[in-house]
């Protein structure tokens, strides 16, 4: 049996969980094993019903109100009890913040190895996988040697398979774990609203990015003006946040945000791998840089070679001229 953890918001399964489930479906087909899922809290049953046509044989639903808010240890205790009871060969979750955290707890409780952020899995003896290092800038081919293989699946490494119309529905199987006070100790006690408004970097169609080449906190006004005429959001590289020029909430990269705009305008950004992993999902990249040989050029589609302090204001002025704004 192959077990997949399905995260859901209200009654809607999360996209990253469906990616993990798509890979799990392929593994189930390859090994001839049944496919099970587990989901938590209020909405678990409704979310499980949304898995129709995805090849799921049984959906374990843990309808315990104490598990509705994220409770990583209790979720992991539950998964560990399902492992003990059902003996799955593979347990998968999304390589999301929650997925990685819960599966780490499962690994710790069961004393089994966990391969985080896998991109490919080939069951067999040995059990082979490929996983991400450096947030995907480097890949590791590895094997796992354990009775139950614990995996998380890297975001966007696997396409979500379309549900098959008219396919059998999963059997809904309520499960009541035995939880101790310690298991329930780590839980979200309250939620706070987001502290900022404006154009969100992760939703923006256009992002104007600034790096070391911007040179100072004050010089970001040039990028702000370009962003204003484009209706764009401003993002930055790690150098900029480390220097205290801009807040970390604007950082794009391995330890910041992943963006996927139609256009990313990278100004004075050399293109360290840690930055590129955050920006490579952009449909197009325009680099403005004095160095024709900067690493950013190997991922950019377009480039202007020059000093951003001259180029950016000139572009802003030209946009104002042609749009009359």
């Amino acid at each position, binding site marked *: 049996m192959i077990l997949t953890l399905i995260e859901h918001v209200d009654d809607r399964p*999360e996209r990253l969980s469906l990616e993990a489930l798509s890979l799990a479906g392929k593994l189930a087909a390859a090994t001839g094993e049944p496919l099970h899922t587990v989901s938590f809290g209020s909405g678990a049953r409704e979310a499980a019903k949304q898995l129709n046509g995805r090849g799921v044989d049984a959906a374990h639903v843990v309808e315990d109100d104490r598990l509705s808010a*994220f409770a990583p*240890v209790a979720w992991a205790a539950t998964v560990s009890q399902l492992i003990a009871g059902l003996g799955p060969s593979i347990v998968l979750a999304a390589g999301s*913040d*929650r997925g*990685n*955290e819960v*599966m*780490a*707890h499962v*690994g*710790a409780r069961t*004393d089994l*190895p966990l391969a*985080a952020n896998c991109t490919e899995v080939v069951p067999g003896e040995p059990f082979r996988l490929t996983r*991400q290092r*450096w947030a995907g*800038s*480097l*890949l*590791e*081919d590895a*094997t*796992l040697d354990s009775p139950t293989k614990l995996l998380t699946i890297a975001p966007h490494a696997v396409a979500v398979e379309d549900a098959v119309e008219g396919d059998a529905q999963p059997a809904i199987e309520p499960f009541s774990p035995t939880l101790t006070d*310690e298991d329930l*100790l*780590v*839980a*979200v006690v309250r*939620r706070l609203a*987001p502290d900022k408004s404006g154009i969100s970097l992760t939703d923006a*169609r256009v992002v104007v990015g600034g790096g070391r080449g911007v040179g100072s906190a004050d010089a970001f006004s040039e990028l702000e003006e370009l962003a204003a005429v484009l209706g764009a959001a401003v993002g930055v590289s790690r150098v900029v*946040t480390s220097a*205290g020029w801009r807040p*970390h909430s604007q*950082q794009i990269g391995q*330890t*910041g945000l992943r963006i996927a705009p139609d*256009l990313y305008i990278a100004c004075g950004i*050399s*293109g*360290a*791998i*840690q930055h590129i992993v955050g920006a490579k999902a952009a449909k197009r990249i325009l*680099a403005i840089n004095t160095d024709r040989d900067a*690493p950013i*050029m*190997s991922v*950019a*589609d*377009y*480039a*202007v070679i*020059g000093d951003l302090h*001259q*180029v950016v204001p*000139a572009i802003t002025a*030209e946009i104002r001229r*042609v*749009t009359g704004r």
Partner: protein
Amino acid sequence: MKILVCVKRVPATGGRIALTADSLDIDARYLGFTISPHEECAVEEAVRIVEAQGGSSTVLTLGPDAAADQLRDAMAIGIERAVLLETDGSDWDPMATAGAIVDAIRALEAEDGPFDLLLFGNEAADTGDFQVGIRVATALGRPAVSGIKAIEAADGRVVARREASGGGWEVFELPLPVVLGVKEGLNLPRYPSVPGRLRAKKKEIVRMTPAARRGGPIKERLRLPVGTESTVEVIGTGPEAAPAVVELLTRIGVVSR
């Protein structure tokens, strides 16, 4: 508050990664090394908490002799003690790493009493295993939570926040002792001062020899992802390129005339 921060020495990779001939490692001959980014913030947070509330701070790493540099970096900004679990520099899998850290914490606590707070990075920049802190917490029977970007510690409890996936924050309240996996953005780490560096240089580093265990995953080889490079079209030089840029922006629908 008695705090232990666990850090990892990682190469400062810059624009490209090159591999060694056997594809088992990054070719770091021409690279500098640094503390993994999330853990730089863990170090800063430990220094700030001890500055504000008193107590003591210790930094620990598992790595080669040269990882003493990263321990000294942490001491240069105010961490008091450093412990090196010395290896030959090869990768230790996350289970082996966690086991060695648990052994060390038990030894340190047997001598000096328990730590109130153990800080880890959410994941190491290089191997990205997302599990060492949680394995340590579980072995020691202490609560753990990851992804933390704000910490308030007072009166034997911590209030810790992490970003929620849909925006906003999720808040956890936990009794001490506790294990937190933190993320960059928790604070803005300071740069070490020259006197701080000089002080750190003279400080003793406690060395221990960790016992190896085999866990997994078992690394076979490393490789670079294919197909990420594109051919760049240079559309101009200097401010004179502005009309050509705006033409491009119009063509791709970013500017409408």
